[in-house]
């Protein structure tokens, strides 16, 4: 493979930032290079500039861009990751949203849900809380850029690493072993979760989007460049009803950015709350 020049890297990373909002500058270039190498081999291309030309001008570019999304998205996730945030939704957001749930179900969005562990974890917590018996209702929408991961999410069959933060008792109760080492999430936890394909870096159009009471977008913004970060946060602000909650990963912050939000503190976690419109 030809050695990539400064210009090759910039052209390609600018394109990825423009299309997907993902930032691969600096040290992340190495990660990107490792993930792209199999694509260059598959397309019989000699270097990054040729791949950039392929993505921009070749008749097969749309198929390749779809393939690229499978390669460059980080699919690292597992059940009950940063579980204190799920507890905050069950113990605090749900009770204070009782007035909403008298009219309609609470609407929750899991943005960049990968293979579904996040929305399903929340579903498990909500169902197991017994809130349904007290009149609570909810709908969870979950979206991701990577169609392969969404397919995994819809199948809801998991193994090994997905359970690294899930105790044995919970696994037995919530999952059914369909073959050795592979577990299907039980139907009662699956039914409130709907999946759809979406590029968070593109304008929010088409099916799937609505007005939400809670948005989870965790460990995603760290991969966004500054502009993409700001754009996405302002889109979330549009999607959340005033007073709605935005949950980010523990290493992500809206400190000094996002005037539409204010911090909301729970006993073991925090979130950002959409500021209510002035009366």
């Amino acid at each position: 493979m030809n050695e990539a020049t400064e210009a090759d890297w910039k052209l390609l990373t600018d394109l990825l930032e423009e299309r997907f909002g993902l930032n691969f500058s600096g040290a992340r270039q190495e990660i990107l290079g490792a993930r792209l190498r199999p694509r260059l081999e598959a397309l019989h291309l000699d270097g990054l500039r040729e791949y950039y030309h392929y993505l921009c001008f070749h008749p097969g570019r749309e198929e390749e861009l779809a393939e690229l999304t499978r390669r460059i998205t980080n699919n690292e996730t597992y059940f009950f990751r940063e579980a204190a945030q799920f507890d905050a939704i069950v113990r605090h957001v749900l009770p204070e949203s009782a007035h909403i749930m008298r009219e309609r179900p609470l609407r929750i969005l899991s943005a960049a849900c990968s293979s579904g562990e996040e929305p399903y974890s929340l579903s498990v917590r909500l169902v197991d809380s017994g809130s349904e018996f007290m009149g609570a209702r909810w709908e969870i929408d979950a979206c991701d850029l990577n169609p392969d991961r969404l397919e995994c999410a819809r199948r809801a069959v998991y193994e090994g690493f997905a359970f690294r933060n899930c105790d044995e008792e919970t696994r037995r109760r919530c999952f059914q072993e369909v073959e050795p080492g592979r577990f299907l999430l039980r139907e009662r936890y699956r039914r409130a979760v709907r999946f759809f394909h979406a590029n968070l870096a593109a304008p929010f159009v088409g099916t799937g989007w609505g007005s939400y009471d809670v948005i989870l977008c965790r460990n995603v913004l760290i991969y966004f460049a500054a502009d993409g970060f700001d754009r996405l946060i302002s889109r979330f602000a549009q999607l959340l009803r005033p007073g709605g909650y935005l949950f980010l990963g523990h290493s992500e912050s809206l400190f000094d950015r996002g005037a539409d939000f204010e911090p909301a503190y729970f006993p073991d976690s925090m979130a950002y709350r959409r500021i209510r419109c002035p009366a």
Partner: protein
Amino acid sequence: MTPVPTPLASRLAALDLPEDHPERERLILEALGDASPPVREVAIAWAARVLEPGVLVPLVAEGSNALLRNAALAALERQGPYAVEAVERAVATDDTDLAMFACQVLGSIGGASSVAPLLSALGRSEVNVIQAAAEALGRLGRREAVMPLVDLLQREPWLQLAAADALGTIGDPRAAEALLALVPDTMVAEPALDALARIASPAALPQLVTLLTDQRNRRLRGPLLRAVGAILGAEKAEVAGDSKHTSTPSAQDATPSTHDLTATGRTIEADHGVDSLWQFLAERLGGGEEAPALPSTQHPGDDRSRSRSGNVTLRAAAALVLAGGITSLFPLFLRWADERDGRAWVQPLAWRYHDRLASVAGSLLAHPDPAVRAGALWTLPPATVGADQLRAALEDSAPAVRVAACYSIGVIGDAAAAKRLATMLDSGSAAECSAAAEALTRLPQEAQLAFLAPRLEPSTDEAILVAVLGALALSPCPALDERVLRLAGAVTGQLRRSAIRAVAAIAGPRAEVLLLRALADRDPGLQVEALDLLVGRGGDRVRTTLLAMLGIGDSLRYHVIRALGRLGRPEAVAPLERLFATAPLHERIEILTALAHLGGDAAREFLRQCLDQPLPEIRRVAAQGLAALAEPEDLDLLGRLARDRDWVLRSEAARALGRLGPGPARPVLLDLVRDLEPAVARTARAALAQR
């Protein structure tokens, strides 16, 4: 009354003034101290572009305004070689802070001319300046700095720390003795050991080993072990894939350490206690990590952090265990060879110390853990193991051991194992099938004819055929060529692909014709693969066919254009130029890239003309081609490209000027070094550094 601050957007817009605007310099200077990071970032780029270093240097001395000072430093760093002279003068100033920051900037810029002022700065009285100079000299990596830096190792800890790190970066063995003197009882013992690991001087080995085996130095075991491992070659280049077929221990691999560590090994072996060095090594070899050893660029969330390729301390432990002949720990080492990733570092290390492993081969091959038995087969020279033992390993209960045995049998070409290999080929797992096929291709011709020929029939199970053809692609057997050629027209795509790969390994016109026919295969992926294989073979017939295919406007033509570029035959230039006028955009881009590969005056002239094309991407690719082909007479043209509005053209101009070497291009490159687009500035800096 407090003035109302100008909005961010207005402050940013104010920086984008015309070149001759009288207020521009003042506004840039003002924005360098702006409270907003985005404004400062833009101001730094403009300052690097339009302000002279003489204007920026005094701002570095601006102690009362840290924002302004840091912005000025960043602008000087961006100016790079353009600012060197002014910054070098600032090192000699009486202002301590200015001198210190000037040293830091020179370290970032990295020019060879800065060594002298930085060495003078080592003689100053202020610790901050000396420390910054030492760090900068380390970044410059110049050997003339070694002895002055060694002298600093006698000074206060801050200076010892800077000097040790710099000496480690420079990597000169003259520093080893002075660094060893800092171990184990100084505050900088650990950084000194880190530097010794980077220097990897064999002369330091005896003392490092003595320190490592001394129980009193338990807290330093990790860094001591890494330093020892570096000297023992634990981090030498890995082999790609499984290279056992082509390599047995070479003279270089087998080079013993300059220092016999068997006595050390016996000492370590004598104590298996809880806190012993033996236990420490066992934990490292067992996969326990004492400290993070990920490359600095690797994000903790990156899935490669779970790679089994081994980390620095693990490899160091392995090297010491082998060099010291600590046989009780050999099994823990060999288990790493049971996986392909592990073999990449385990095999070269094992070959370097193969005599140690060979001395206990029998017990390793009989070890109850199959991963150890397989690891022994992957690492021991097959001749040491012997044909009988290898044949016995083919009957092992563990598939991984049987696979490893196949590879070893292939290396020694043991025909007596052929029948058993054929059985594995017919009924083994996928891994066994593939390993058995590869081993059979390495046996004498009679065995190949007896056991492979009957399996190269269209009626053979496809998985077996694919395995055999895959092996023949790596290691062709002339006696089987005829059968392979017949399979090139197979029905299924997978089989045709395997056959075409095996055909490509066969010499002669019949194989070439089959590859040419594969260009019309119904599987587009196979067409492209056949094209690649043909390009690898070269030849007149290939060139003629490919030129004829330029007239067929199908999806393969894109690849044909690229293939003609790779073939490197000048006859292709004119047909490609003719096609350019009518080809779609993605093919025009490839035509220009191919012309750049082909080279010559005609191609260069065509690329020059394409710089006048209206489409930006065509101009960019033409400039990219010229960066590879430009001659000294193109300097004026490159000078114009260096001033183009498109940053890609400026970047290509910088690359071309760097390739052309010294001469009148230096002022142009010094201008590009201050380009607003960082990618252009970095390219220009690299171009200047080439000269």
